[in-house]
């Protein structure tokens, strides 16, 4: 029998090792078991009709291939619907432009390392980011429709808030990751907060910010296609009216237009990102 340095035999060591391996396995097993119980309890608690799952694919197949086919693309090209497609693009564009204009100061205020004032500006910037992020866009849209009335203005402002929450957070994370050397150098010349931001912070984050802005336009376009559902402008309105009338051929026509536009915007943003690299 081999004996180690401290008088521990190989068998002892193996037994020790086994004990911990088995303990680890036991803990994993118990965790998995508890999780399964939790899942079953959830299904029971929420009265989920799991028996319906067996026929689900058949019913979805019937719906997609019989009732939604052929998609009524002509409907998507009629006056009002076509105009609402243009309105959707317009909303996503304006929402991104104004959202970015708002997100730049917020990202600056909300970045701990370069914020103009850690007692006033930092909490303000953080609060703007957290609050706009915590409320889902559709709920923002419903609130703004009540306040501002139906139409693309409510949708555009929703997209401004979406851009602020999404791009603002990523942009301020970029600012927090910068090299502080240039900031100190510019400050040492006696520059104020704004000049420090323009000459020390911006050049460092510009490339990353442009990437974020392009990505954000992409995602705000995706979000804008649905805002009409609650009356905030764009082609979501027609999606809602056609699905509520069970006119699935027309609904599918609109969904196909949305998919085509999203793919087009993805290709566009892909090329834009490649161009800046």
């Amino acid at each position, binding site marked *: 029998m081999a004996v180690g340095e401290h008088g521990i035999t190989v068998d002892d060591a193996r037994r020790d090792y086994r004990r911990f391996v088995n303990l680890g396995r036991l803990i994993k097993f118990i965790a998995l078991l508890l999780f399964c119980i939790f899942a079953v309890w959830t299904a029971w608690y929420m009265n989920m009709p*799991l028996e319906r799952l067996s026929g689900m694919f058949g019913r*979805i197949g019937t*719906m997609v291939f019989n009732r939604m086919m052929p998609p009524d693309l002509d409907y998507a090209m009629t006056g009002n619907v076509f105009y609402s497609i243009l309105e959707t693009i317009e909303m996503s564009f304006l929402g991104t432009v104004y959202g970015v204009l708002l997100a730049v100061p917020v990202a600056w205020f909300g970045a701990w390392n370069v914020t103009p004032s850690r007692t006033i500006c930092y909490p303000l910037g953080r609060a703007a980011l957290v609050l706009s992020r915590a409320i889902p866009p559709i709920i923002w849209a419903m609130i703004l429709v009540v306040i501002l009335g139906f139409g693309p203005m409510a949708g555009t402002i929703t997209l401004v808030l979406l851009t602020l929450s999404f791009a603002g957070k990523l942009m301020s994370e970029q600012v927090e990751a910068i090299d502080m050397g240039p900031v100190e150098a510019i400050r040492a010349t006696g520059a104020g907060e704004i000049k420090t931001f323009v000459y020390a912070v911006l050049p460092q984050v510009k490339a990353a910010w442009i990437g974020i802005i392009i990505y954000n336009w992409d995602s705000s376009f995706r979000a804008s296609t649905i805002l009409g559902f609650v009356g905030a402008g764009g082609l979501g309105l027609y999606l809602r009216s056609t699905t509520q009338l069970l006119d699935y051929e027309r609904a599918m026509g609109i969904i196909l237009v949305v998919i085509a536009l999203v793919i087009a915007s993805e290709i566009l943003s892909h090329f834009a990102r490649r161009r800046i690299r």
Partner: protein
Amino acid sequence: MSGIEAADASGINGAGLIGDANPLRPRNTILKRYCLIAGFASVVLVLTAHVFVFQTDWARTGGLGQMLKTAAWFLPNLGYFPSILLALFETFLIALFGTLIGMVIAIPVAVLAARNVTPAGLASYWAGRVTIVLSRSVHELIFALIFVSALGLGPLPGMLALAVRSVGFLAKTTAEAIENIDIGPVEAIEATGARRIAVLLFAVMPQVFPIFVGNVIFQFDINIRRAAILGMVGGGGIGLIFAEQIMSLAYDRAGTVVLGVVAMVLLGEYISIRIRSWLL
């Protein structure tokens, strides 16, 4: 491309100021740049006028005072808060299980859509890619509409809608992670004569696992927000209550629901930060 100029146009770019004095830059480049800026600004101006002036019924909207008065209707009615707690809990569960189901579906899709491990060449690669694009470009409300009509009302279609919607992001990021792995371990495992599934399990998975887990947590964070609206089309959760309160003009109760959603999202964010620091 106009987006790039936009960032320059709005005066947030210091380099533009340096560019004027830079003798190395040809004059017509500067001119071209100013033309682009002017063009972009005028497009923004025209569209802004269109949306905010011609498309808005200002007589109905009223001035700033009227807007603030309307916004004040949404001040939360805290007495209503206890009655939405169960719906919030249900929303949370929908987000949790939606993410987990989506995670399970996303793994095979990611393997299909990663160029270096896809099993059957271009055919399976494109199958994976098309799944990702479809899942990413259709909104969760539309998925929920489809699942509700196939399964009836309730949280189950909502969960499946979230799952299908999550597949795109999870599979896309995971496929990218798989494409960027270090090929060394793969070759080492292959050299032992291991089968394809063993290569995936012992060479690919350990390398992408941390990225995958991070993305699943991020997706859970997003799905909490998404779950909050599914009820509007019958997908279960708090969305139905919110839509009901808005439709019955009980704006103070709607405000309470918003408060609840904010609390739930912040709690979810806290939990995901804790899980992330515990796992990664």
